[in-house]
């Protein structure tokens, strides 16, 4: 713990370094930012809290010169500034760590850090100096990174450090981090927060964007809450609690924990034995995973992104071929059965990426609804013809049943909001009354209303005796829905815990610790 002036961390008298006033930004008919104002003081960590789509990222992109505001002003260190591109932002001392990293995988750490501000010697990039400078920065802030390694070889947590170093190398005084904890284990999050405290101790000011209520406690001084593009309130972190924050963020009372009844656990429906699966790069991503999912239970899979979850889900669903091992559905070996076949046998799959896997964006909802069943009656005949009208009728039914808006079978899938797209996927997958459901990050990037709806649907399926495998990066989600939790680390199961496991327990498993003992 660093020594700080007060409970709220930053002295009220500290000078204001950033003031955004009346910022408004519209995209076509959508008002992303509506008259937003906020202030940031020197040495302050300000939490910027809001749901997906509330307008947090838009506001920060305006600050970083990626978008230009329709109205409003920005002052830095008391001086009104126009920020027309990131270069301007950088020269004003603004640094940003984006949610999706902006690193170039094929370049080295040092190359990434100096890009755009290269030290030169005789017309060439002075790589020796770039490396030295990077090392110095690492030293100074305790961020351990090897400047010579390729970014593609680094773990996500380390890549995030590189992003921070990139900003520091450009002498950032205001650092914005967009959802920085989404890709970290609880312990890595702790590490990150202590680095941030180190930085504000050094005189930097930080804006921390998040949609997770709990994590701002203990790190931020103040929290500004945004809903539907407007600032709802700014509160002192020490004066508030999660319940109040949730209400401010969503605009109504929210059940923080899903209530679920005990369910009858039945026979094993889906199992994997010693499954080995390769990733896109050709290297092994899943190393001999075995698991069982029983009727009436939700088996949660936790882990940091990129630890084999995607490949495991795809191998179970049949969209990726396993190198070895077996997948069994109701005791029958389906390892050699393709995705279609598995679906016909009653295995539904909600893929993590509705944009590129779950839906064909340029297909109509009716075509998307039939994308797995188009070869069967009533959608097609034995002679190869398809019947669009039958597709439309079935889609209309499903869309209504799952509250997809608009419920128009002819609407282009890509024209729907994220939440509605996800509901459309769910409608297709669950309408066939499958016995087993593999759901991969089913609530990624959707609003709270859709999250509640999707959670409700999954629990309903569980009560109906379905076997559900839930993969999620959100620990809270896994904990609140699952009956058992398996943690994946580096493509292996690092442990199994109950839904009442603590952050510390899960965090250790997510970081791969505890594996040696079990081996």
């Amino acid at each position, binding site marked *: 713990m660093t020594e700080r002036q007060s409970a709220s961390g930053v002295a009220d008298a500290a000078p204001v370094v950033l003031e955004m006033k009346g910022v408004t930004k519209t995209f076509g008919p959508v008002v992303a930012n509506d008259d937003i104002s906020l202030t940031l003081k020197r040495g302050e960590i300000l939490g910027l809290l809001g749901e997906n789509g509330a307008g947090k990222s838009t506001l920060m992109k305006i600050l970083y010169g*990626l978008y230009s505001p329709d109205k409003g002003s920005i002052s830095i260190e008391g001086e009104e500034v126009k920020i027309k591109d*990131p270069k301007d*932002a950088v020269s004003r001392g603004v640094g940003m760590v984006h949610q*999706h990293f902006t690193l170039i*995988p094929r370049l080295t750490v040092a190359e990434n850090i100096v890009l*755009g501000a*290269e030290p030169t010697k005789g017309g*060439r990039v002075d790589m020796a100096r770039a490396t030295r400078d990077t090392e110095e920065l690492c030293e100074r802030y305790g961020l351990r990174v090897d400047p010579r390694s390729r970014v593609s070889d680094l773990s996500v947590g380390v890549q995030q450090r590189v992003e921070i170093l990139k900003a520091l190398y450009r002498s950032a005084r205001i650092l914005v981090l967009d959802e920085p904890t989404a890709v970290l284990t609880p312990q890595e999050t702790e590490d990150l927060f202590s680095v941030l405290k180190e930085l504000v101790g050094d005189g930097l000011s930080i804006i921390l964007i998040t949609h997770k209520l709990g994590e701002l406690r203990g790190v931020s001084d103040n929290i500004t809450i945004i809903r539907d593009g407007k600032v709802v309130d700014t509160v002192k972190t020490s004066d508030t609690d999660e319940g109040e924050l949730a209400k401010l963020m969503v605009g109504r009372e929210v059940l923080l924990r899903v209530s679920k009844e005990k369910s009858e656990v039945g026979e094993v429906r889906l199992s994997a034995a010693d499954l080995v699966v390769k990733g896109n790069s050709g290297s092994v991503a899943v190393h001999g995973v075995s698991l069982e999912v029983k009727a009436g239970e939700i088996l949660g899979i936790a882990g940091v992104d990129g630890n084999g979850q995607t490949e495991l889900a795809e191998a179970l669903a049949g969209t990726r071929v396993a190198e070895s091992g077996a997948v069994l559905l109701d005791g029958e070996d389906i390892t050699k059965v393709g995705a279609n076949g598995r679906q016909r046998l009653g295995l539904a799959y909600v893929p993590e990426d509705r944009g590129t896997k779950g839906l064909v964006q340029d297909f109509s909802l009716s075509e998307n609804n039939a994308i797995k069943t188009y070869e069967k009656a009533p959608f097609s005949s034995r002679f190869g013809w398809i019947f669009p009208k039958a597709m439309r009728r079935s889609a209309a039914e499903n869309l209504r049943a799952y509250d997809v808006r608009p419920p128009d079978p002819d609407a282009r899938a890509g024209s729907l909001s994220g939440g509605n797209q996800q509901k459309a996927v769910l409608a297709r997958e669950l309408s066939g009354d499958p016995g087993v459901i593999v759901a991969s990050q089913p609530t990624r990037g959707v609003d709270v209303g859709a999250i509640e709806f999707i959670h409700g649907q999954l629990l309903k399926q569980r009560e109906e005796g379905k076997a559900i495998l839930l993969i999620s990066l959100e620990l809270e989600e896994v904990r609140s829905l699952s009956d058992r939790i398996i943690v994946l680390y580096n493509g292996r199961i690092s442990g199994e815990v109950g839904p009442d496991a603590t952050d510390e327990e899960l965090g250790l498993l997510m970081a791969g610790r505890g594996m040696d003992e079990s081996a």
Partner: protein
Amino acid sequence: MEELFGNFGQLLSSTIRNATPLIFAALGGMFSERSGVVNIGLEGLMLISAFAGVVGAFLSGSALVGLGTAMAAGLAFALIHAVMTITFEADQIISGTAINLLALGGTGFLMVEVFGSGGTSPNVQGFSAVRIPLLADIPLLGPALFNQSLLVYLMYALVPTTYFVLFKTPFGLRLRGTGESPEAVDTAGVNVFRMRYYGVALSGILAALGGAYLSMGILSAFTENMTNGRGFIALAALIFGRWHPVGAAGAALLFGFAQAFTFQAPQDVVPLEFLQMLPYVLTLIVLAGFGGRAIAPAAVGKPYRKE
């Protein structure tokens, strides 16, 4: 024995001559693709500059002026591609195809306008072979490598220069970054659009050198559609050479050799048509064997838009 060496020397010399336009175009394509813009219009860029070079030399009587007009035409056509794909977000492959058709139709149109008829232009002042003393005396390699047109020597210099620019300079780092991840480069404060314009513009100038060498180095006149697929073969060389200057030059030499062999092989044994197929068949084989394993710049082909 002497005859064998003589043939070998001729074959080597012809290989260099055939590879030179391919290398120019491939190096040009490299700048474009490394910045994230596919340039399938290399063929057209070469063609229009081959023509413009001849017109310049015809009107001025000077090969150097011809080289200048060739480069200007290559640059101008490349900028059309740049405006369409970078600013107006047209599909890069389709825009490149259009550039090829534009060059084909445009040279046809202008042949009539400038020289009064299609087909072949009058002969003009070109870049004849310049013998480099001492180096040209190296047995076997000397006459093949160092008794060539000035443009060939320029090509020798351009391969290492391109390597240096691409891998050692801030410009090269930013250009490579733009082709890999424009978002990253943008957030680092580098103007993505400007980098892509540079990349495409350079591809025009370099492809123009290739075109000029065709009409003013190998020949001294322009004939309609004289590029005959060389721009596409250069693209294949670029892919086979893994977007690396030395690799691309090596691949271009291989294709140049295939073309040289076509001219040298005895026609009474194999029908002419089959010999003429050889470079294209070789390109296919190379692409099938190695193309799939090559890793293109990650963002190539995709327009960059900020909002």
